[in-house]
């Protein structure tokens, strides 16, 4: 089960790679989770590994909601 901190990490990584970005090894654990669930997807460009919003991820806006409280 994802802890609160791990959940925040998922959100951070999702936002970071939403528009497409070269993969950093530090982010791989969260990227695995997000790619396995179609929120993000991996792709290759010039021999380097990138990630971007996947089929489900594209339905979200690339910015978090503003707090309502």
């Amino acid at each position, binding site marked *: 089960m994802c802890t609160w901190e*791990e*959940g*925040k990490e998922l*959100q951070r990584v999702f936002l970071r790679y939403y528009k497409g970005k070269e993969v950093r090894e530090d982010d791989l*654990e969260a990227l*695995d989770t997000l790619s396995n669930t179609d929120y993000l997807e991996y792709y290759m460009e010039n021999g380097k590994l990138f990630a971007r919003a996947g089929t489900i991820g594209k*339905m979200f*806006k690339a910015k978090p909601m503003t707090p309502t409280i």
Partner: protein
Amino acid sequence: MSMELDFWIPNLSAEAASISRLEKHLENDSNGNFRIVHKDKKIVVTAKKDSNGVQSDFCLNIEILDYHGRCHLNCNRNAEPASIYIANEAWNAFRRKLDGCEGTIYDCSAVREPFNVFHSSTGEFNLHKNAGNFYIDMSNRFIQSVERISDTMNHIWSNGMEIKRRRYNIDVATRSLANAKANKLYFDSFLNIYGERFPAKTTKAKIKEMEFRMKKVEIAYDAITTIRNTDYESSMHTITVIALLISAIALAADAFIGLNELFQWIHP
């Protein structure tokens, strides 16, 4: 460090890797980024030249261990992100030949990326290996996949991110639920095929674990779709009130005009 592990081709008929199927589906393949060569029970997936980011010396060997779909994967590349991605792609190119669920709404995402669990907290690569019992490892992978679906849905959707358009809410929830149900389906099939290889208590425990995970996904799904329905009902309520107001104004106006005409008739 090369990449190597036992894995499973998802199937419901328990004959995913029978000789007749292998011969029928793996012949004369020339599409996509990979070339798949099949001889006896050995399958070699190699990259074609000039594919994006895939060098031609890449090779994934797949040895069929039983006709139920258990196979041994062995890749000639070192475990680094780009190579792991290519190995996963090569596996999926092979899987597409034998597996009817790949790329569909009932896709079994637990077996999409054999080498995706590869990063340890120490920062070193820690490939998913069949450290203990293959059957238990594989069933854990299914359970972990369903867990990931509920976690991602909850943390991304519920707390942090905004959906682009309201109508997508239900799409996100429905797709995630379908993905979880598909993984549960193939988990059940895996236990149906290999159940005898598990210790009896372990099988029951794994089934229970999966049930709990599915309930978690269903809770998230119900919550998200309920919010969506509440939004819809609220919108419909507003529209109804506006429509009633317009009707009331129209009736009042009509009555006023009618009275005015009557008054003019009485006192011309």
